[in-house]
C-alpha cells in the first residue's frame, strides 16, 4: 500500500474546520513563525478513510484471529467496555486540580478510588495508585517506591535481584531507578534457583522482582521461602503482575509476602492493547509504602468525598501528567464490576484449563522443557524441530499462513527456541482444537518439508522482511 504522503495532493483537505467568529489577530513576529507549513498529508476524507481502513485490514487481531501471544493475555475485549470509556471523553483532568474543582469530579475520582480498592483486594495490597501508564511504568514506579522506602530508613541500597526468566522490563525498570541488577539463573524445576538466590542475597539488595506464575507459566513452590529470605535482608518483594490472569481469587500476592505489585490492566483486566498501547499499570503496595505513593493521590475524606492530595512531602512525586490512563481504567473497572467475584475466578480457572489443555495436546509433538502442570500459559521449545533445521520463528511464520497469530517466540530467554502459548480463557475449545491441529501439522511439516516452513508466510501482503536492512538504513521517516 502507498504511504499516506504518497496519496497527498497540495491543497487538499481531510476536514473542514469551524468558521471563525472573532477578528483575525495581528500576525506574530516573523522570528516566532515557522518557515513553511509542516508537510502533513493532504488528502480527502474518503481517501483518508479508505487508507486507514485498508491499513487496518493488514493486521491480525483478537477480533479476527486467535492470538495466543504468551505473556500478553490477549483475551477478548468486551465491546461494552469501549462504549463505557467513551462516556468520559469530555472531562478535563485539570478540573480536579483546580481549587474547589474536586467537587465537580466526584464520579471520576470516585471511580479511580474504587478501582484502587478492587485491585487492592484482588492483589492483597493495602493501597493502589492508578497513575502508572503501563506495566513497565508500574515497575519503575514500584521500584521508586521501594527506593523511597529504603531511603527513608537511611539507605536506598544498591541491587535488585531478578531471575533469568524475568521479562526485560524488570531489570530495565530497576536500572532506570539506578539499581544494579543481579540475575539469578533458573533451576531445573523451571524457576529461580533457590540456592543461587540465597547466595545472591545480601543487605544491599533493595528488592527481589518476581513474576508469579513466572514467564514459563509455572507457579513457584518456593515463593514464600523466597520472600521470607528477602525480608530477612530487609529487601522488599516486587510482584510483576503480568501473569495475574492465572490466579485471581486463588492467591493474593500480598498474602505471599509481596510488598509491591503492578498489574497490567491491558492484560488481566480485559482492556485492548491497541496495537502497542495504551496500557495501564496500577501499583499496589503494603501499608509501609503508602506514604511514598505518587501525587496526585486520591483519598476519601470523612464525609465520603473524594479529595486530591498533591502536597505530601514523602511522596516520590508525579510519575505522569495527571491520573494515569483514565480511559483504560474505565474499561478495567467496568470489566471487574461486570465479571464480579465469580467471573474473575472463572477467568483464571479457565485460562489455566486452556493452557494445560494445549500443553497436553501438543507435548507429543513439541518439547516441553519443564513438563508440569502449568498455569495460564505453557512454554514449548522447538528443539526437536531444530534437528530438521526448523526454528521457532519458522513455526511462527507458518502459523501466520494458517490464520493464527503466532505465540510469543524466543521468550523467556532461558528456554532455547521458546514457543510460549497463552490461549486465555475467552477462547472456545473448537478454536483451540483447530489451532492444535495446525500446530501438529507444523511439526509434521518440519519433518517432511522444512523448506515450506522457511518460506512461510506466503499469504500476507509481505513475506519475511529484511530486518538488517531496516536497522542499517534507519529509514524511519518518509523522505520529502
Amino acid at each position, binding site marked *: 500500500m502507498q504511504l499516506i504522503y504518497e496519496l497527498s495532493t497540495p491543497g487538499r483537505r481531510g476536514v473542514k474546520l469551524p468558521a471563525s467568529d472573532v477578528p483575525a489577530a495581528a500576525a506574530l513576529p516573523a522570528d516566532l513563525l515557522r518557515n513553511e507549513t509542516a508537510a502533513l498529508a493532504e488528502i480527502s476524507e474518503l481517501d483518508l478513510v479508505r487508507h486507514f481502513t485498508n491499513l487496518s485490514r493488514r493486521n491480525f487481531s483478537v477480533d479476527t484471529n486467535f492470538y495466543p501471544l504468551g505473556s500478553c493475555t490477549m483475551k477478548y475485549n468486551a465491546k461494552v467496555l469501549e462504549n463505557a470509556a467513551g462516556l468520559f471523553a469530555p472531562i478535563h483532568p485539570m478540573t480536579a486540580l483546580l481549587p474547589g474543582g474536586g467537587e465537580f469530579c466526584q464520579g471520576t475520582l470516585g471511580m479511580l478510588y474504587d478501582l484502587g480498592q478492587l485491585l487492592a483486594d484482588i492483589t492483597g495490597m493495602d493501597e493502589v495508585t492508578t497513575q502508572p501508564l503501563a506495566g513497565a511504568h508500574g515497575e519503575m514506579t514500584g521500584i521508586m517506591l521501594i527506593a523511597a522506602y529504603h531511603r527513608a530508613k537511611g539507605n536506598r541500597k544498591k541491587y535488585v535481584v531478578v531471575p533469568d526468566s524475568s521479562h526485560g522490563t524488570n531489570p530495565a525498570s530497576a536500572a532506570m531507578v539506578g539499581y544494579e541488577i543481579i540475575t539469578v539463573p533458573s533451576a531445573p524445576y523451571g524457576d529461580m534457583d533457590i540456592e543461587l538466590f540465597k547466595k545472591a542475597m545480601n543487605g544491599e539488595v533493595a528488592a527481589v522482582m518476581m513474576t508469579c506464575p513466572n514467564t514459563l507459566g509455572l507457579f513457584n513452590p518456593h515463593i514464600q521461602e523466597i520472600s521470607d529470605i528477602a525480608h530477612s535482608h530487609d529487601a522488599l518483594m516486587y510482584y510483576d503482575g503480568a501473569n495475574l490472569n492465572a490466579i485471581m481469587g486463588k492467591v493474593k500476592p500480598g498474602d505471599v509476602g509481596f510488598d509491591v505489585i503492578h498489574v497490567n490492566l*491491558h492484560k488481566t483486566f480485559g482492556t485492548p492493547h491497541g496495537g502497542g*498501547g495504551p496500557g495501564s499499570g496500577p501499583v499496589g503496595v503494603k501499608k509501609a509504602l503508602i506514604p511514598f505513593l505518587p501525587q496526585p493521590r486520591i483519598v476519601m475524606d470523612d464525609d465520603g468525598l473524594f479529595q486530591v492530595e498533591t502536597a505530601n512531602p514523602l511522596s516520590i512525586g508525579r510519575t*505522569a501528567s495527571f491520573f494515569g490512563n483514565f480511559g483504560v481504567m474505565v474499561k478495567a473497572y467496568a470489566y471487574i464490576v461486570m465479571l464480579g467475584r465469580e467471573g474473575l475466578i472463572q477467568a483464571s480457572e479457565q485460562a489455566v484449563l486452556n493452557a494445560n489443555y494445549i500443553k497436553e495436546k501438543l507435548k507429543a509433538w513439541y518439547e516441553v522443557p519443564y513438563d508440569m502442570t502449568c498455569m495460564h500459559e505453557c512454554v514449548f521449545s522447538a528443539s526437536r524441530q531444530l534437528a530438521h533445521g526448523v526454528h521457532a520463528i519458522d513455526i511462527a511464520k507458518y502459523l501466520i499462513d494458517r490464520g493464527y497469530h503466532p505465540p510469543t517466540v524466543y521468550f523467556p530467554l532461558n528456554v532455547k527456541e521458546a514457543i510460549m502459548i497463552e490461549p486465555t480463557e475467552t477462547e472456545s475449545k473448537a478454536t483451540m482444537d483447530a489451532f492444535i491441529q495446525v500446530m501438529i501439522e507444523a511439526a509434521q511439516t518440519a519433518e517432511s518439508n522444512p523448506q515450506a516452513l522457511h518460506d512461510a508466510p506466503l499469504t500476507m501482503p509481505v513475506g519475511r522482511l529484511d530486518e538488517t536492512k531496516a536497522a542499517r538504513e534507519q529509514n524511519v521517516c518518509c523522505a520529502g
Partner: protein
Amino acid sequence: MTDRHYCPHTLDEQKEMLADIGVSSIEELFAPIPPELRAKTFNIPPGMSEFETFARMQSIVAENSNDMLNFIGGGFYDHVIPAVVDHLSGRAEFYTAYTPYQPECSQGTLQALFEYQTAICRLTGLDVSNASLYDGATACAEAAMMALRVTGRNKIVVDGCVSPFSRQVLRTYLLNLNVAVIEVAPLDGMLNRAGLAEVLDDSVAAVLVQNPNFFGSVDDFSPIADQTHGAGALLIASVYPISLGLLKSPGEMGVDICVGDGQSLGNPLSFGGPSFGFIAAKKALIRNIPGRIIGETIDKQGRRGYVLTLQAREQHIKRHKATSNICSNQGLCALRGLIFLSSVGREGLAELANLNRDKAEYAKEQLAKIPGVTVLRSAPTFNEFTIFLPRPANEIVTGMLKLGIAAGVPLGDYYEDSANALVVTVTEKRTRKEIDLLAKELEVALCN
C-alpha cells in the same frame, strides 16, 4: 458456572478437556499452589450483565460536571476531533492487536506508525521519531535521560516556565540517579536568559525548555540552542503540537530533542488519559531514543514493508542496558494523532493554529477590559495567556466553577508570589459568545 459468554466452555467440554489433561477437576490444576498460600478472602462484589454495567458507568459519569465551559489547559486541550478519528482508530484490527512483533501480519499497525513517525518529524522539523512514549511529561524525563546517556554528564537545567507537571515528573525520574536538576526561575513568564547563562556549564547534559510555556508565552529558542550547544549540551524542547501549525519548529530553532504530549491531536480529554508522548530528535541520536521505532525495509520479493527496528536499544534485548524500560507505549493514541494530523492536513493545521490564536487574542482583549485585570504582555502568546487579577485567583476560580465555568489555571499553586495570576486557555472550540460570557462572569465575580 452459568454464563458462558466470556468463558465459553460448557460443562461437557470442560469435562472432556480435564479428561484429556488427565485431571479430574480444575482445582487439581491449581495444585502447584501450596494450600497455605491460597486466598482466604475475595471480596469482589457479584457480577452483572453488560447492560447493568453500562448503566453503572453512566451513573458515575453523571456524578461529574460534564458540561463545564473549559478555559483551562495546563497540558491537555479541548480541541475538535474529526469524526474519522474515532471511526478509524475504532477498527478492531487496530485496537485489538498487540505490539507488532510479527511484521507480516501487522503491516497495518506498522505502516501507520511509520506514517506517524513521519508526521512527527515533519511537524517538529527533526529527523527521527519513535512510535510514541507514555505522555508529554514522561517524554520530558526520557529526553533528559537520553541526554544524560549521550553526553555522559549529570546535570539537567530546566526552565522554570516548563509545565510544573513535567518538571515534577522529571524530578521523580531523576531522583535516584545522582543527577542534579537545576531550575531557572522564570522572568516575566519567560526563560530568564541571564539565569540560564549563570548555570550553563560543561557539566550540563541538557537544557529543557517549553514552547509555548506554562504562562502561555511563545519564544524563539534559536539563540538558546546556540548557547546550549556552545556548552556541549543538548537542547530539549517540549512543545504543544497544535501550535506548530504556526510557530517556528524545534528543528528550525536547532533543538536536539523535541518532546510533547499528543493529547491535543485527536485524543479526548478523558480525565487525563490515555494520550501519548512524542519524541523526535536529530538523526545522530537515533540509537539513544527510547521505545519502539518502525523502519522501512523490503521482503525477498522486493516488496516494501515495515518492521520494529533498532530493537537492540530495547529492554527485551538489552534488559538493564536498554535505552528505556518502556514496553507497551500509547500506540493507538499515536494512531489517533496520525489520523488527526492527516485529516486536518498541512494547510488545515496552520488554519487551526491561527484559529486558536485568534480566539485567544480576542479573549485577551475582552478580559483586558475588565477593571482591575491586567494581561501579562512580556511575550506574544498562542492560545493561552496569563492575566493578573486584583484578588487571589484561587478564590475567583472556585467561585466560577460553581457557575459552570473553568476560568483558568491559577498560577499560585505552582509559582510563588503568583497568587493573583491566572492562565486562561482558549481553543478553537470556544465561541465568541462563550468568551464574552467568561469576561462578563469574571467581571461580576471581581465586583463581589
